[in-house]
């Protein structure tokens, strides 16, 4: 499998001059074909000078219900009235021609007038000429919708996931700094559900719906935190809502600090924190005043925090960083539980399984690492990328096609994307992970002390709160991908699984939406191949993991 994926890359590199023509619009998996459905991108010719300075990230935002009539975080009244008027006008238009089908007709004069009257800028105007985007705004004003939020250069773009329109329906430009990370909370109680972190360290919270209602190209009704980097002026690296945190969110910065904010507080209070005494040690400081926002600073590591992820219920927070360590914290206790070092180099991304039993990490060693919370160590390395692994995610919507649902053999499907432009899908079957065979069995003696530190990976019980050193190559079981597909021409930066599709995004701001093999699709023919494909990597000698029988 590895060889074949190498082969793939070498053929692709020879055709690199011709670029996109070499890319297929589908890829096959044991469960069927994933087909390229839509592509989303930013308006062409956009700020090429800004390229390379920022890396595009994508956030999925689902607006569920009608908005609350008024939000406690409403902007100055004049502004809010203005947008209210606009939305009313839009509703009228929407009622008259709002059906989705019309959006592809073009030449919708009514909605065009909205955008041109409200904005003198050429950018919105040029979006307007693609026409369908205008009716899109209309049809989504008070309905629910699924949106993609992505950053390119100095702008945030919002696009409707379910429209085949390539161009975004909304762009928001930042004058002073570039937006670099964002997060959406679909269960937000009041209006503010979208977080945006900037390279200057500044952070905004806004209502996504309010942005969609407004036709301008500036952020509206925003709360501004860490203004001009007053608390921390290093780049925001990753941002996340605390699940069930009642409006609390965390921002990880390039200097190894993470701040906890509460969106209900304005960011005006004095938030000075004591000087960090030991850069190498984890420490938490709380703000001295109850009005302060941020309310706490966690110093996590030396160098950048590259990614953070909360477990589903918000009990745990995982961080990965420049120092190559994955760290897992008990969020409410503010305690380090476990963690470990990459094989080598920085870790770039991390993600939890839905049941919070496993964490995926990806990094500069080209490996996808599977970390077990139960064992507090790495249980598998996925080999298959030909460059750094920049995005990982479990596919929580996937159910093993050959399982009856009650089987003991739990199978996890996950995906990874890399700077090699490839999307890889993996199956993690706990029954199949095996402890690799020892090359040099200990010459008698007790297994615990026999081969020293190198083999301790599989022998020792790991105490709470300790970080594991990098395991040795021979001590970690290897996984091979189920499928490897070159999805973009540019290095990738992230992936998202939804119920219907897989989204891939490249560093330069192009998003591709791959539809899952449909239920009605030719499943029968493809499913025949499942056993042979998934068994191909089954090693001959195996002692099994999971049932903790892997002593020696």
């Amino acid at each position, binding site marked *: 499998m590895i060889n074949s994926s190498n082969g793939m*890359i070498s053929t692709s590199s020879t055709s690199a001059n011709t670029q996109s023509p070499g890319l297929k619009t589908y890829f096959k998996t044991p469960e069927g074909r994933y087909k390229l459905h839509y592509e989303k991108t930013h308006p062409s010719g956009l700020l090429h000078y800004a390229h390379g300075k920022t890396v595009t990230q994508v956030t999925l935002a689902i607006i569920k219900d009608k908005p609350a009539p008024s939000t406690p975080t409403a902007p100055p009244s004049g502004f809010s009235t203005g947008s209210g008027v606009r939305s009313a006008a839009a509703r009228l238009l929407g009622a008259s021609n709002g059906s989705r089908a019309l959006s592809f007709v073009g030449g919708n004069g009514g909605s065009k007038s909205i955008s041109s009257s409200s904005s003198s800028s050429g950018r919105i105007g040029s979006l307007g000429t693609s026409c369908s985007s205008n009716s899109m705004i209309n049809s989504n004003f008070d309905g629910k919708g699924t949106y993609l939020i992505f950053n390119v250069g100095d702008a945030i773009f919002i696009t409707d996931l379910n429209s085949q329109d390539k161009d975004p329906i909304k762009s928001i430009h930042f004058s002073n700094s570039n937006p670099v990370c964002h997060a959406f909370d679909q269960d937000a109680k009041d209006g503010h559900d979208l977080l945006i972190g900037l390279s200057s360290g500044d952070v905004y919270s806004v209502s996504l719906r309010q942005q969609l209602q407004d036709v301008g190209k500036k952020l509206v009704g925003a709360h501004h935190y860490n203004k001009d980097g007053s608390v921390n002026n290093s780049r925001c690296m990753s941002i996340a809502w605390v699940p069930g945190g009642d409006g609390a969110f965390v921002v990880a910065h390039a200097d190894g600090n993470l701040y906890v904010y509460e969106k209900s507080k304005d960011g005006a209070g004095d938030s000075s924190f004591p000087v960090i005494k030991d850069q190498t040690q984890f420490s938490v400081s709380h703000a001295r005043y109850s009005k302060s926002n941020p309310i706490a600073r966690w110093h996590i590591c030396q160098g950048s925090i590259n990614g953070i992820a909360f477990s589903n219920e918000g009990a745990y927070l995982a961080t990965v960083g420049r120092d190559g360590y994955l760290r897992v914290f008990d969020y409410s206790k503010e305690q380090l539980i476990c963690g470990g070092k990459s094989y080598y180099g920085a870790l770039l991304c991390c993600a939890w399984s839905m049941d919070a039993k496993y964490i995926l990490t990806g990094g500069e060693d080209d490996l996808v690492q599977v970390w077990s919370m139960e064992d507090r160590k790495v249980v598998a390395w996925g080999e298959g990328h030909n460059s750094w692994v920049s995005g990982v995610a479990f596919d929580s919507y996937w159910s093993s096609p050959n399982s009856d649902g009650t089987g003991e053999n739990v199978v996890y499907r996950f995906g990874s994307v890399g700077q090699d432009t490839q999307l890889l899908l993996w199956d993690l079957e706990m029954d199949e992970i095996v402890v690799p065979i020892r090359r040099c069995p200990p010459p008698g003696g007790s297994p615990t002390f026999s081969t020293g530190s190198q083999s301790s990976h599989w022998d020792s019980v790991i105490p709470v709160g300790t970080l594991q050193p*990098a395991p*040795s*190559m021979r001590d970690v079981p290897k996984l091979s991908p189920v499928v490897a597909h070159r999805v973009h021409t540019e290095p990738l930066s992230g992936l998202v699984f939804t119920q219907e599709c897989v989204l891939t995004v490249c560093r330069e701001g192009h998003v591709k939406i791959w539809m899952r093999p449909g239920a009605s699709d030719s499943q029968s023919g493809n499913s025949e191949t499942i056993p042979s494909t998934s068994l191909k990597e089954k090693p001959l000698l195996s002692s099994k993991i999971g049932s903790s029988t892997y002593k020696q």
Partner: protein
Amino acid sequence: MGAAGSKLEKALGDQFPEGERYFGLENFGNTCYCNSVLQALYFCAPFREQLLEYYANSKNIGDAEENLLTCLADLFSQISSQKKKTGVIAPKRFVQRLKKQNELFRSYMHQDAHEFLNFLLNELVDILEKEAQAVKSEPETSSPPEKTANGPKHAQANGVSKEPLVTWVHKNFQGILTNETRCLQCETVTARDETFFDLSLDIEQNSSITSCLKNFSSTETLNAEDKFFCDKCCSLQEAQKRMKIKKPPHILVIHLKRFKYIEQLGRYKKLSYRVVFPLELKLSNTVEDADIEYSLFAVVVHVGSGPNHGHYVSLVKSHNHWLFFDDENVEMIDESAVQTFFGSAQEYSSNTDHGYILFYESIGASNNKS
């Protein structure tokens, strides 16, 4: 220039490493290939240390004949003994000597930094070997091994058990590759060792150094026109061949083959491929699972879109700060700026600054240090 120096001093402030000197090197007309490599070598801590030690000792012996080694040692000692912390030095004697020694470097044409590094290391080794022989005063008539201008291999006399002299240059840079060939007829594995001072890697678009190293050691089948003469079968046979690293060097120098001869064009072309290189690296293509960790300390960067022109600069890590050396100029850069030298994901990009030679030093077990 002086102003630039003080700017760097200001940037470092009280973090300026004690005893360290950051000096730009004057360009004598297309000598940036030389300057960029010299900076990388200067900030190769064990190499500099041993060169200065050698210089101190050889001075006691008395003025030996000038050669490339004494010129290099002289230059390094000149830099390290400067009163000022920053500034510019003219490596005049060294460059003159280099041009005298090798006609390749005599012209004012654009030169290849990797060729220069290779020439220099082999030359240093030759000088040290000759000196050692002179000390032994054994009239052994082993002429210095033949060098090919481009080959990184310092070919060993085939199998003849002449005790190879291990100089401090060897101790720093030399590694051993083993070339395993398995005859597909009789299954006999023939292993042939060769030494190297650097690894020249083929590169691919949007790949990593890790991946290039894997490809370097991937199995290759010898067949058709390219069969293998099996000693056991006494005939040409199909065979499988792979290169593994038997002894990883203390200083791992990786050369990215960015200049590729394109047959259709009848000329060399620069590959601007994006090849990412991590700040820490482990070798997976070793004979034993050594898991030796390396840390990146210098990058020689080729600037420009073609092979016959352009410019060389270097990035150097010194006392946990990254510095950018561009001939006379020295600047401090952020660690994250190193990634702007990975290359371009698309052809015809405006970015033409590409990492060309990478210098990694093994961390942890430093058994190679003298």
